[in-house]
């Protein structure tokens, strides 16, 4: 039986085991490989996506738990107002090294700015400590979040 799914503002019908994690549906069935597999256990954040704007670990989210929620992945993160600024700050500061964790980092950072428009270091630690960067790009992640926060605020003021 096909299950309907809304991902990046598009509707999909997938016929798979409802227990299959969203991560693998995105990667294998919808051919959206931007969302990454890192640990499969909710420990690294590489698979982070937004579910109705909330950052979740897609490796821990079975299809059956998605329901009517709207999924946003890295491929469409620019459609979220803060997401666009996060991506731009990431490019500006050249945050990535290998780049593998960065989709997850960007999703978590976008969610953080939605919650906390002017995040302090402690807010960044709390929101981002679920996202591992094996290359340790943390200094730039912190800086880029602050830069994106300022740009998002400026947008609102305008």
């Amino acid at each position, binding site marked *: 039986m096909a299950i309907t799914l809304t991902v990046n503002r598009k509707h999909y019908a997938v016929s798979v085991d409802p227990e299959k994690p969203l991560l693998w549906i995105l990667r294998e069935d919808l051919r959206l490989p931007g969302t990454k597999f890192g640990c499969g256990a909710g420990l690294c954040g590489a698979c982070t996506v937004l579910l109705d704007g909330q950052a979740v670990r897609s490796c821990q989210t079975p299809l059956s738990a998605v329901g009517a929620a709207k999924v946003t992945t890295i491929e469409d993160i620019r459609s979220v107002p803060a997401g666009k600024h996060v991506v731009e700050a990431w490019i500006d500061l050249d945050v990535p090294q*290998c780049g593998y964790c960065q989709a997850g980092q960007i999703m978590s950072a976008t969610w953080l700015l939605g919650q906390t428009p002017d995040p302090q270091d402690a807010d960044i630690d709390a929101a981002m400590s679920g996202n591992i960067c094996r290359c340790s790009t943390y200094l730039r992640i912190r800086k880029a979040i602050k830069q994106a926060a300022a740009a998002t605020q400026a947008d609102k003021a305008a």
Partner: protein
Amino acid sequence: MNAADAISRRSFLSASLLAGAALAFHVRLALAAENGAPVGTLTAFVRINPDNSVVIGAKNPEIGQGVKTMLPMLIAEELDVDWEQVRIEQTLADDKIYGPQSAGGSRATPVNWLPMRQAGAAARAMLVSAAATQWGVKPDALITSGGMVRHAASGRSASYASLAPAAAAVPPPAFETVPLKPDSAFRIIGTPRRGVDTPAIVRGAPLFGIDTDLPNMVYAALETCPVFQGVIKSHDDAAALAVKGVIAVVPINSGIVPKGQKDALAIVADSWWTAQKARALLKVEWDLAAQRHFSTAGYEKAAVSSLSGAPQSDILRKGDVAAGLAGAVKTVSARYDYPFLAHATLEPQNCTGLFDQDRLTLWAPSQAPTGGRKQVADMLGIAPESLIIHLTRIGGGFGRRLMSDYMVQVAQIARALPGRPVKMIYSRADDIRHDFYRPAGWHGLTAGLDKDGAIVALKDHFVTFGAPDAPVRAAEMEATEFPAQIVPNIHFGASWLQTNLSTGWLRAPTSNAMAFVFQSFLDEVALAAGVDLPTLILRTLGEDRLLPQVGRAPQFNTGRARKVIEEARRFAAWDGKRPDRWTGIGRGFGFYFSHAGYFAEVVDATVSKSGQIKVDKVWVVGDIGSHVINPLNAEHQAQGSVIDGLAQAIIGQKIDQVDGAVVQENFDGFPLMRIDSAPPEVAVRFVTSPYPPTGIGEPALPPVIPALANAIYAATGQRLRSLPLRTAAV
């Protein structure tokens, strides 16, 4: 220079090799076709499009070290194009066309500094020569810039694109003779450039090995023997095969057990998730009797007993260490140790293969495709030339992907399913439990000081792993370990324990451990000598000179070492004072020379009452030669290396073994650094010196570990001699 010779011989002059170069590019031509067909292919590395944009081939594997940006910068510089005109394409793996292609040892910079510039200069010379012929002027009357050739006297100019068809027919000059720009003319080398893939990464584009997607592709998960070197006795795959979506179960050899034996079962399915689930239904009887007795506890016991005896083998014997110690005014003795470590790249090991009509094509996130090609050909019994290897972007290397097990594995699975592309992916547990680990080691050290506080004798008994009378991979120790070349009486000896684990190179291999041992121990020696560590090192270095070459290790220049140490003292405003009481706040120093780079680092750390370690700031001073080719990336690499080193020290990283099998399975048991434990500031400064540039992916890592351990001593009086560092409450 050999590499240059090799490339000029191979990739130039011969029509067949130019055909090879064209072949190399053809695979990605669809990508490059945005401007129509290229108008000229000049050398294996440069292609000019009709709109005067330039495609430059990046030949080395990109693991996050920035080489895909850096090598093309060298070509673009000498080709004399604007960086904005350039688009970068990863080449295939084929060292016959491109020269050496590996990501290891921080070697890409020294090996390619000249050849890549020469490749760009040769292509430029061909364009200039085409223009000179067309205009009937001498080539040296022409200048180039921004992808244009100009003749000042007549005011004529032409774009590279308009000249490219004629230039492609010009015989390429020999690499060695083509003139290179003087440093003063550099407009790209030495300027900050963002990673060429950064925009694609933040778009979620399919760049990585694990993103490989081919029509009709199937997925494989591996059930590998949990105990290294164990093999399959018998197996029953009926239940797994009955799962909907499962296509096949293929017994394979991962390359670490004898040929003919199998130590893993590949479950192939229409989804990796399905394959991984079906894996639980396999019934396998393993033969592990010979490996069960290997354990961390066993190694520790054996190492301690070995340390109290004489070393099994000599690494270096110089002067008379016994007499030197007997005559010393003071002696210092200590034991240091460190554990096995996994690489834990964030992209799990994976590889995609397609076996079709006796040809194998691999999409390999490999740091060493040349080695992989050999091993795969050997395992399959096919000709190495019959393999096509696509290099993908790599989600972290750290040395793990210098090994080729994933290529060997997927090759066997693909051959069992001819015509079907197979993507094999390790689960995280597979990745951590089937690594090639940084080997553990134990050191028993003694140093003797004379009445002036100079080191007169030094002794180290290094216990590690060997098979049976030589060290295993990455367990070597150099006879040049500082200060062995300077101190008159030295005895370095080794003893080797047995292990069934595979070992391998981890970022700054051997140095990552040796720096901790020697620079921490030298801090103890400095204390006994009544000075601070930088003073002891400077005093030991003596006058500026080049120490003798030993084997293939890079030569140690005491003057370059002195400069980075002095600069680090200035940079961090190091006052050299030893604390008179333990405040929980401390500062430590570390220096190390590895991978031809000289690094001195200072760490400020705070230890809480409960013993929690916090790194407040790190200062890094490095000398990587005459040019920092891409200063933006160099700073990022140094910062990343430093935080990587701190991860080995403060978050509890270690690999344990029980009953022959590795215990840790995921990032709970084998933690990685997270943002809330990373230092808020890592300040980086480079000093230049008149020597060829070298790589920056590794040498900034080793000194930070002892600098931290020494800072913790300064903060608490606790001398931590075991990694990972564990402080007691203060």
